């Protein structure tokens, strides 16, 4: 059973699942696109989730946390991500499915469930307006696959009691 937590604990929990997040994100990409990945630098913790020009987001949460997995790809990298696919809609659909697999895998990790409790992902949503979860903190990293660069992250904030009333 997960108890109510403050932001300090949220940070500690996020740092503990950081490595698992990187593994899940890279594995989803490698298995779906059948290509190796590399990370130019380590995945990192950010005290405040950036407002990002979100390409694809998967919202999730439970009674204690509100969270979202995001996957951002610059439009100029679409061709490098899926060579031969020229229709933006098809590329976004594939990015959505990759995010779905990342989320399913990450939320199913024992380390994740131990700290944050069970969460179910929603279907992917796409936005180019910029998005964040307000006071959320975040783990994030850059993954290179083929000639494309993606930013994968997971932002979360604990829901305070007064927000639940």
């Amino acid at each position, binding site marked *: 059973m997960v108890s109510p937590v403050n932001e300090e604990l949220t940070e500690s929990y996020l740092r503990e699942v950081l490595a698992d997040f990187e593994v899940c994100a890279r594995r989803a990409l490698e298995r779906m696109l*059948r290509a190796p990945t590399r990370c130019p630098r380590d995945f990192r913790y950010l005290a405040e989730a950036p407002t990002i020009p979100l390409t694809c987001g998967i919202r999730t949460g439970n009674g204690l946390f509100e969270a979202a997995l995001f996957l951002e790809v610059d439009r100029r990298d679409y061709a490098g991500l899926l060579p031969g696919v020229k229709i933006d809609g098809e590329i976004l*659909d594939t990015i959505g499915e990759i995010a779905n697999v990342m989320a399913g*895998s990450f939320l*199913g990790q024992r380390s994740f469930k131990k700290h944050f409790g069970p969460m179910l992902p929603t279907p992917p949503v796409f936005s180019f307006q910029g998005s964040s979860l307000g006071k959320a903190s975040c783990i994030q990293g850059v993954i290179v696959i083929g000639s494309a660069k993606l930013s994968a992250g997971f932002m979360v904030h604990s829901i305070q009691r007064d927000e639940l009333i």
Partner: protein
Amino acid sequence: MKKSVVIVDDSKFMVTMLQDFFQDVMGYEVLATGCNGIQAVDLYRKHKPDLMTLDLTMPIKDGQTALAEILAEHPAARIMVISALDGSSMLECVKIGAKAYIEKPLQLDDEDYRKDFQETLEEAFSQG
């Protein structure tokens, strides 16, 4: 006579991959495809396929709700859940009556994986 399948997934990428696999590798007839739980229930009712593949995380109506509704109406329905969710979701679907559960991502161009997938399908059919 060819076996028939209806494929339901909200990702066009997945639908295309499964459609190609069932048609070209397995020799199935793909009767229809859908992208949410409401369509899953309607398409099962309309086609009564030998097999339905069903995603869980979908808009409008999720796959688990659709699975329960289909099985309430057609207890012998053969439904294979294909989802990125694992653990408790898998157990719940099997409890409800899914004949098989396959975790995404699929790797259907890998020969060993394909054999495992085919065995899982055979098991689903051997359950009646």
